């Protein structure tokens, strides 16, 4: 269902609207949350709770969503990432033996890809995302799946109908391309 119709339904009949919203986007929100929580020692119920929090917040703060600024899909992805980051930090603090400032542990959780540049933070982010889009398919999908959804090369290969080695090679080349664009060094 397109966003304008979904939004009208959410306002006119919240129960039906939320049912439709979750049917449409629960899979995506789950993937985003799982991608962030996969390395944070979270169990499936943590992921489900987090997904539920995302939809609950979307509903209770519906007045804050502005369809002129973004699609519902993008808005939910950002909410999901935000909630998942919060849960990940709490879990890591609970574990006690992982410091958020520990660069090595962060490298273990996230890729060691970094971007160097003199651009202001917001502008840098927009440039990176734009460049990521500019990689074209299937590279942009591979990067999104790997670093946003946290999928493995095998999972990505299955979905995109590629071989695992092809996925790894494309990932390596795409990251080098991005590094080069932003003044970093190729690896």
């Amino acid at each position: 269902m397109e966003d304008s119709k979904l939004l009208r339904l959410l306002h006119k009949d919240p129960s039906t609207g939320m049912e439709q919203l979750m049917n449409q986007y629960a899979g995506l929100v789950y993937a985003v949350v799982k991608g962030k929580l996969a390395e944070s020692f979270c169990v499936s119920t943590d992921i489900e709770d987090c997904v539920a929090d995302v939809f609950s917040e979307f509903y209770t703060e519906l007045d804050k969503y502005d369809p002129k600024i973004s699609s519902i899909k993008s808005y939910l992805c950002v909410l999901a990432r935000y909630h998942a980051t919060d849960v990940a930090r709490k879990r890591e603090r609970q574990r006690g033996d992982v410091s958020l400032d520990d660069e090595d542990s962060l490298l273990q959780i996230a890729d060691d890809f970094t971007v160097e540049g003199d651009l202001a933070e917001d502008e840098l982010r927009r440039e990176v995302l734009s460049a990521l889009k500019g990689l074209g398919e299937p590279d942009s999908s591979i990067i999104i799946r790997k670093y946003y959804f946290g999928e493995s090369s095998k999972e990505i290969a299955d979905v995109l109908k590629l071989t695992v080695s092809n996925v790894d090679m494309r990932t390596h080349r795409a990251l080098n391309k991005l590094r080069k664009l932003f003044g970093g060094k190729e690896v």
Partner: protein
Amino acid sequence: MKKKLNEIFDEAKPQEFDQFSDELNAPELPDEVLASVKGKVYAKTNLKKEVKTTKSVWLRFGAIAACFLLIVSAVIVVPMLREEDIGIEPYIPNGEPWSPIIDSSVRDIVLSADDVGNVFDAVMDSNGTNQYTQIYTSLPEYLGITPLPNAEFLPIYSTNKTTPSKSELIDFIAEYLDSATEFFGINEKNYEIKKDEMWNGDAFFKAEVSENKKGVRFTARNNSLYFHYYSIGERRLEINGGKVSILESDTDEQIKEKLENTITYVCNSFGKHYTDIKICRDYSYQQLKTITVYLYSTEETIFPSNFSKEPMTSDYISLTFYTDWGSGTYCNWGGSKEEAFLSDVSLYQTSQKWNDYYKIDSKAKMLTLEEAEGLLEKGYVFGGHSCPLCMAAQPEVDFSDYTCVDIEYVSDENGNMCIPFYAFYKHIGKNEYGIDTYAKTYVPAVQVSGYEEYFESQKDNHKNNWYVDEVG
């Protein structure tokens, strides 16, 4: 500067993700996981889980309707949707009919059926019908209908919405901060004015004072300056040291009698004196959720909204009572399940007189009730998706012996056109909670041209209707 790709994703804004619409795809969740997530969402938000209608029935009706071109007729069979009809007598409201005041210089027009159809959302009603909606209420008196106007012409309005300014909000807070915080038992006086946005992009200003999980919120929005109380956890509001309650089954007269002292106390607390009381009952989700008591004084306006339904068109104070069901499972009312407790007292001050808000653009010749009944018989009804194919697939309701009728103005979402309709109500039984159910349908109350062409053209919309697409 160094940045990890994951940090880039963490900090990205929604509009920056729109470009990845194609890449942001994920498989559907397994049924049991989806069901688990939904259950948690419903528990957190207190939304009722959608009761699925017999979708397979819709599939059968949809398939049959798609094979035939049917012209709508609203009069054939009388099936009961739930229990047997208990035989509600026709209801005729008391009171004086409204007399519209229209300047002689206002032009005459004849509306087109397209104009009329466009004031309604073209989505299927959640009750599974689009030829009529379902309304729930305990007594026909609670439908809020009034005597039909006796007029040759009815006004067609447009709306002129103005949001109060930040300085107006500041003045409003200055006027009521002390009385409101004292009334609600809040010692905090510090506040900060913030700017916020509605889902439709309209900006507005707000401020709040809060302590110990309760507070007062001051807002400037939708032509009004207002404040209301909120609390997290305990939702019962104490007045003068005691909780205030009424029974769900109380009549309007019983409510007025029980609340006489409370109303006096509330008005005196804010330096107000009102002459009228209106009581509205909200039957959201088919059960009684809230009872709201409006205190106001009748003002002469060109718009009759104060006569029957929300929104109010003059300054007012409202007292909102939540029923045990309406309060939510996590609130733990305690006590009798039949009591509705006071949860909020709000004060509204319209920043703009309603004669400025509703502007009479034109006038149109009013149809007599007999003429409107003729349109009803032909099936020229409005209220949502008007495709004859979909309407023919619905359980039919015989409106020829309708229970009551009202004049109701309906506006499109932008307020460009506000049009009068005859709203026909037909009692069709009781729902699963024992609440009387009415089918409600709209017929234009003024002259309209192009009915046949309009309903024929709606068949094109049949393919574009999301619900039809879903069921094929």
